[in-house]
């Protein structure tokens, strides 16, 4: 159980990029579309360009330009383009990419990852509603969906989660909406769960004041849980037991200008609160028209110059990664340090003890690592134990961690969780199940090396992450790291994630950190040549081919590496990103 935190927006100072965020862009477009006002959004053509720029050559879409495709980003980009009336390019190759994420039973977020209900929901809907095709095996998918029901009646993130009765209204929503998408092409499709038990469990999450919890382990009603619950209940032909009380609770979450917030007492109206409030009111058949004006005005304020939207006014839309990166690359005596740390510490809001990428969103394991590395836990004495408890609850049944609750495991997130505990000084065995952790890491390994997810190609970074985790588990294998580094060392300088041709900053950073941990020397003169090659007038680039700087995160890694070469830092935090 997470201690109750004051649910107000973080104070202190954040670093903003002014750039659009895909999550926010989808929420803004969808909200306007629900209100029948998508045509009134500012910069629609630029927003479509922004969405299209997330498309990779493999047919999937990525959260950020240059990142790997994933199912969620693919749904958000294609759905938002559809809502804006734009043509979705090459849907056939998107459908082919989705096939690569099919596990045999359900969909995973990435090819080779274990399936979860988040990914399954997004991919079933993309496949059925946008690609107008069917999942590869409807029968097996329904069997998998059926196995999501836990003994308490609710749905879990995966059949393995359901076996531990980790039900959550978000998982219920994603499961129910997957079934709804399948039913669109087969109106007689039976509900794969015990419907009355599912409805009963969801209704039980409504609190006396009217809003919903994520599940029994949450302590504060929120708009996100309320939307997921009301929309799932509506799809099942039901609704909250106390419907009017729920409508009133949603309406009470308005600020003076008529826009919505996510929690009682929260003081910033963000895009997700608007999305969830309008979604909840629609699901309960309440009037949304009278909220359209205030919500549209708020969405206008969140639009970015280059297209897309962020969660609040762009010049005030700080994020945890940029803020943590700026704090880490700045001098310790910089007077702004305490303000940045205070803001980061404030990104811990009710129900989840980790740090959010953007305040009022959801806790994420990588953001928690970067913020803790930047000293955020020092700004709040309750933080270390609550973060450790959150990580304990986040550990998946397979022993690994995903980016956030319920998402399939990967080595980046698993290494981030382990490093966070190391930085907090909390032994692994106090917070996690070390035996299951070791099982997941070994499950990502074969004779060719370690993989980001169990069935992906082997990479340097996955190997480095696995070896650091094994170090913390007391399973260091002498010589293994030296061989791995030799395989990926680039002659000119730096390290490559795949092969030994193209070095990149993130792989090089992780290589140096891991080599330091095992006291393996790195040729600093070649490292300096590599760092010089990725220097740009506007900062540090991610690779020698990238024309511009990569922003605060790349600058941070570049500064930390230069400090390491100069001997100003004896040890660097093991920061992971992808």
């Amino acid at each position, binding site marked *: 159980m997470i201690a109750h935190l004051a649910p107000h927006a973080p104070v202190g100072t954040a670093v903003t990029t002014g750039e659009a965020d895909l999550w926010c862009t989808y929420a803004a477009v969808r909200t306007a579309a629900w209100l029948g006002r998508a045509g009134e959004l500012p910069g629609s053509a630029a927003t479509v360009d922004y969405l299209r*720029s997330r498309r990779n*050559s493999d047919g999937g879409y990525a959260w950020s*330009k*240059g990142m790997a495709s994933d199912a969620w980003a693919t749904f958000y980009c294609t759905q938002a383009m559809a809502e804006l009336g734009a043509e979705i390019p090459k849907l056939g190759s998107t459908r082919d990419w989705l096939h690569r994420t099919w596990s045999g039973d359900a969909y995973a977020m990435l090819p080779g990852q274990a399936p979860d209900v988040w990914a399954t929901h997004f991919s079933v809907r993309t496949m059925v509603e946008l690609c107008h095709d069917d999942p590869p095996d409807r029968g097996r998918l329904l069997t998998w969906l059926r196995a999501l029901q836990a003994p308490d009646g609710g749905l879990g993130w995966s059949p393995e989660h359901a076996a531990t009765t980790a039900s959550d209204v978000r998982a219920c929503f994603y499961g129910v909406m997957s079934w709804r998408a399948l039913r669109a092409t087969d109106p007689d499709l039976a509900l794969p769960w015990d419907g009355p038990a599912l409805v009963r469990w969801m209704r039980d999450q409504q609190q006396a004041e009217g809003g919903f919890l994520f599940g029994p382990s949450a302590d504060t009603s929120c708009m996100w849980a309320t939307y997921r619950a009301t929309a799932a209940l509506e799809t099942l032909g039901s609704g909250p037991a106390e419907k009017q009380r729920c409508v009133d609770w949603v309406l009470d979450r308005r600020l003076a200008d008529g826009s919505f917030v996510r929690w009682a007492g929260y003081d910033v109206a963000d895009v997700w609160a608007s999305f969830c409030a309008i979604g909840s009111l629609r699901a309960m058949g309440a009037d949304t028209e009278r909220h359209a004006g205030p919500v549209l005005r708020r969405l206008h304020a969140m639009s970015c110059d280059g297209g897309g939207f962020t969660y609040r006014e762009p010049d005030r839309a700080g994020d945890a990664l940029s803020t943590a990166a700026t704090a880490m690359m700045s001098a310790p005596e910089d007077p702004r340090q305490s303000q940045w740390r205070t803001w980061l510490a404030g990104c811990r809001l009710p129900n989840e003890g980790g740090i959010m990428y953007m305040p009022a969103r959801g806790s994420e394991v990588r953001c928690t690592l970067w913020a803790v590395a930047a000293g955020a836990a020092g700004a709040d004495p309750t933080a270390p134990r609550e973060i450790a408890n959150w990580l304990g609850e986040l550990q998946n049944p397979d022993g690994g961690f995903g980016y956030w609750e319920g998402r399939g495991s990967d080595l980046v997130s698993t290494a981030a969780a382990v490093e966070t505990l190391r930085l907090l000084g909390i032994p692994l065995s106090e917070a996690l199940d070390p035996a299951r952790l070791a099982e997941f890491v070994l499950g990502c390994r074969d004779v060719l090396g370690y993989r980001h997810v169990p069935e992906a190609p082997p990479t340097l970074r996955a190997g480095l992450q696995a070896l650091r985790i094994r170090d913390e588990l007391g399973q260091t294998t002498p010589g293994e790291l030296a061989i791995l580094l030799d395989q990926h060392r*680039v*002659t*000119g*300088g*730096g390290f490559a994630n795949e092969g030994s*041709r*193209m*070095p990149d900053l993130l792989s090089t950073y992780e290589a140096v950190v891991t080599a330091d941990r095992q006291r393996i020397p790195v040729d600093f003169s070649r490292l300096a*040549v*590599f760092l010089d*090659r990725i220097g740009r007038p506007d900062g540090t680039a*991610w*690779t*020698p*081919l*990238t*024309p511009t700087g990569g922003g605060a995160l790349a600058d941070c890694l570049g500064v930390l590496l230069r400090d390491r070469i100069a001997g100003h830092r004896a040890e660097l935090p093991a920061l992971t990103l992808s």
Partner: protein
Amino acid sequence: MTVSSVPTLDSLRTRTRAVLAGLFGPEIDDLPADAPLPETLGDRYDSLGAMECVTAMEKEFGIEVDFVEHDVRYTFAQMDRIAEFVHAQLEDQAAFGGPR
């Protein structure tokens, strides 16, 4: 191989144009040799597109590009620079031996 066996710069320019046309389409045929590729091709010539270009040139000419030692971002920004780079690499190979 001797230095005299290295193809002329003009022929390398022609082959470079053909390699790029294979990657990015017929618009390359009419592109001035000193046109900036990142600006002309836009998103198609981001770091992944440039990587594809480097790989294709390596395969075509049997050379090896070092992404740190060589100033790839400058060299691979224009067709004439690419051809000159390839010419220099082939001359080096002819004189000292190389990866071919």
